């Protein structure tokens, strides 16, 4: 046994994040912890890593004399925590980031004895272990993509000694390409006798990685199952406490005769090189591709987030020039960003202020906000979009799903003609996911054009009327979701043969 938690509780003012959880982890075994947002899975990981201390109950790490009281003790006890946000120093090189842990303070570390890590061979070996063998150790960390950053952060597993490794939503910012590297890393750790905890709500990844799966709901442990004896349906049911009803197919589009909402011709910009497509009224068009395929460049270019390098965009048949997001908003084009924390909402704003941010000019006279009307409207929106918390709750304190609902409300309040959603359900639990899908269907049903960009093939297959696949900045395939499956999309995205 690697650790044993008995009766662990963590109470915050007004919230019981964990309410009496008993859980054990074994050496050389992977334990998955699943749960909807707010179920307490990240709290459990933080308690085990000593980042926070339990209100009641104890967690004993085998071989350590007493329950760990802080992060430093947890580290001594052999607990390695991999956070959702990669621990990377942007201005350091890749090589320096690999050896970052040597800069910390501790008994066995002498910070004044820092010397340039000259063992490039060892560094490269470590990088190869996380699928970054092609990088130079002298590259700056800030030039890496989000997936590469996460993998670089994970390389710490190869250079520290530990008995327990926690992966807290570590795959949230990596895409499907990097997952195999993570699997290999986990396999090596298992062979070395590490006890691994994988906190996630991506069930396919949980099943690919874990030996046992613990399901949490509302701070309580529902059940621990052997991964071999269960399936995604059962886990989902346990997570949300009821069977998830199958998502309805979107209503068919009436395309006959209607002119397209958006016509894109030979668009260049970012990594997109000559992309053309139409979106009809009431149509949900999916855009699939791997990281770097140009899918996000297309989304950002047609919404004014970045300048187009060439090509034309027609909205309702007229050419539009979209040099800035301001111009796009004026043309009633909405863009729901992939990076919610950075671009989605304002962190010091409450729900009300965030939801009225874009549509505020509509609620004002000569630049003066009609406060009563704004208050009334945002209160309605909170109800309409089922956002947890009130109008004066800070959006940054909400779960990912609720944050996304606030962002969706903010954009739909402008009554856009064309909506672009980049990874609309990234880091969002199943319950909120269904809400977001329903909202997207609703937008299309009102005759608007919708473009959904996603790295999850399944999501697009169940959500869209039509799917385009991109590779190397170009559209390389078009699919009808009724007649295609995940395999078709991924295969096309990876290797396209003319």
């Amino acid at each position, binding site marked *: 046994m690697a650790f044993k938690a008995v009766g662990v509780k*963590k109470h*915050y*003012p*007004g*919230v019981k*994040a964990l309410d009496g959880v008993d859980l054990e982890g074994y050496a050389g075994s992977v334990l998955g912890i699943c749960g909807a947002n*707010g179920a*307490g899975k990240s*709290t459990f990981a933080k308690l085990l890593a000593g980042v926070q201390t339990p209100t009641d109950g104890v967690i004993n790490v085998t071989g350590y004399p007493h329950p760990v009281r802080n992060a430093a003790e947890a580290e001594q006890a052999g607990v390695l925590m991999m956070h959702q946000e990669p621990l990377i120093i942007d201005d350091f090189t890749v090589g320096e980031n690999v050896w970052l842990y040597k800069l910390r303070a501790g008994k066995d570390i002498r910070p004044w004895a820092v010397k340039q890590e000259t063992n490039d061979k060892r560094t490269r070996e470590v990088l190869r272990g996380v699928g970054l063998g092609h990088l130079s150790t002298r590259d700056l960390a800030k030039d890496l993509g989000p997936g590469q950053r996460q993998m670089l952060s994970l390389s710490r597993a190869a250079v520290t000694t530990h008995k327990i490794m926690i992966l807290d939503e570590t795959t949230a910012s990596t895409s499907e390409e990097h997952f195999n590297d993570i699997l290999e890393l986990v396999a090596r750790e298992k062979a070395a006798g590490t006890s691994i905890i994988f906190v996630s709500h991506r069930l396919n990844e949980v099943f690919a990685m874990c030996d046992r799966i613990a399901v949490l709901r509302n701070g309580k442990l529902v059940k621990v199952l052997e991964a071999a004896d269960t399936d995604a349906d059962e886990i989902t049911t346990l997570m949300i406490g009821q069977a998830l009803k199958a998502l309805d197919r979107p209503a068919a589009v009436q395309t006959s005769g209607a002119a397209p909402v958006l016509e894109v011709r030979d668009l260049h910009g970012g990594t997109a090189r000559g992309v053309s497509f139409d979106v009809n009224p009431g149509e949900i068009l999916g855009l699939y591709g791997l990281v770097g395929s140009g899918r996000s460049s297309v989304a950002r270019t047609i919404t004014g*987030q970045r300048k187009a390098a060439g090509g034309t965009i027609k909205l309702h048949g007229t050419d539009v020039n979209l040099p*800035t*997001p*301001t111009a*796009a*908003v*004026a043309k009633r084009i909405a*863009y729901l*960003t992939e990076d919610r924390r*950075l*671009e*989605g*909402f*304002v*962190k*010091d*704003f409450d729900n009300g*202020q965030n939801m*009225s*941010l*874009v549509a*505020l*000019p509509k609620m*004002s006279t000569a*630049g*003066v*906000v009609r*406060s009563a009307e704004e208050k009334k409207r945002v*209160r309605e929106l*909170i*109800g*309409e*979009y*089922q956002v*947890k*918390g*009130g*109008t*004066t*709750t800070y959006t*940054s*304190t*909400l779960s990912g799903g609720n944050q996304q609902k606030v962002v969706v409300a903010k954009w*739909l*309040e402008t*009554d856009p003609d064309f909506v672009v959603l980049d990874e609309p359900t990234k880091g969002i639990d199943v319950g909120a996911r269904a809400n977001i899908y*329903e*909202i997207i*269907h*609703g937008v299309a*049903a009102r005759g608007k054009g919708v473009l959904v960009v996603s790295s999850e093939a399944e999501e697009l297959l169940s959500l869209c009327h039509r799917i385009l696949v991109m590779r190397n900045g170009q559209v390389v395939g078009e699919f009808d979701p009724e007649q295609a499956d995940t395999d078709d999309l991924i295969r096309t995205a990876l290797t396209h043969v003319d």
Partner: protein
Amino acid sequence: MSTTTTTPPPVHHYEENFSRSHALVSWLKGQYALGILAALLVIATITRGSIFWGATNMTNLLLQMSIIGVVVLAQLIVVLTGGIDISVGSALGLAAVVAAGLFGGPSVLLGLLVALVIGGIIGATNGWLVAFRGLEPFIVTLGMLALARGLVYAYGSGIPITPGAAATYANLGQTTIVGIPLLALVWLAAVALIAFLLYRTVWGRRVYAIGSNKEAARSSGIPVTATLWSVYILAGLLVGLGGWMFLCRFASGTPSAGNLMELEAIAAVVIGGARLSGGHGKVFGAVVGTVIFAVIANLLSLLNISTFLQDAFRGALILVAVTLATVQFVRRKADASGSAK
């Protein structure tokens, strides 16, 4: 606009459940600046109570805080965007001497116009470099600090400039309306104007959004550069107004006008609870910060403490207040992360 939601949505009103008295108590807890002010007033009452609360001293105090008060407002709106303006003191000085000297300073109204134009030009230059050229506000306004102060000395050759209408200026500076100095009323009007702009207009909401999260603001279609520019221009106009008020108070454009005012303005804004990284701060806090510094200066001179030590006291207070502010902030952050789960 309706969504596809069919079930009646659950409506949460956590915040409405708090009673008013509870809200008042929790509001007071965040107002440590008011606590400092109260402590200062108690000290003043104990040590020099009769003089301090006397009508003459009160008028003096109000006059003292009016000019810096307007400059604090300028600093506040810049700080809210995540910027900083350390050129306010020099800009005020330049506005004052040029308003006093141009055409011989024949008229108070012309002086006001000149001061506003000078302040506006300086603000517009700062703002253009920050918003459109993407330069650091600190370094831009540092350059402007040296430039404007140099022009002040050059314009008057280092000698105070007395405007032609000096008597009218002095008269205005001594005018009181129902016992309140005219300059204090000008300051209060500026407070009301800035509060209105920040809290009730689209522009104000944009200022906060930009300061808190520039990327989200840009992505939401907010005209970030234009808004930033307008903030610096408005700050410049306020500083110009401050320069004109300086002339009213002292009837002369001295070369040292506005010297070190940037220090006091930034400190007042920070003591008032604004965050230097932007997006967080209130007009009320800035006003309290202004009053605190005026009371300290006033009290120290009533206590006959040397002017050199006065500066040291002021510096020490800034350190104490900033430390208090971070204690508050850390606690609030812990609460926020706690309730987030």
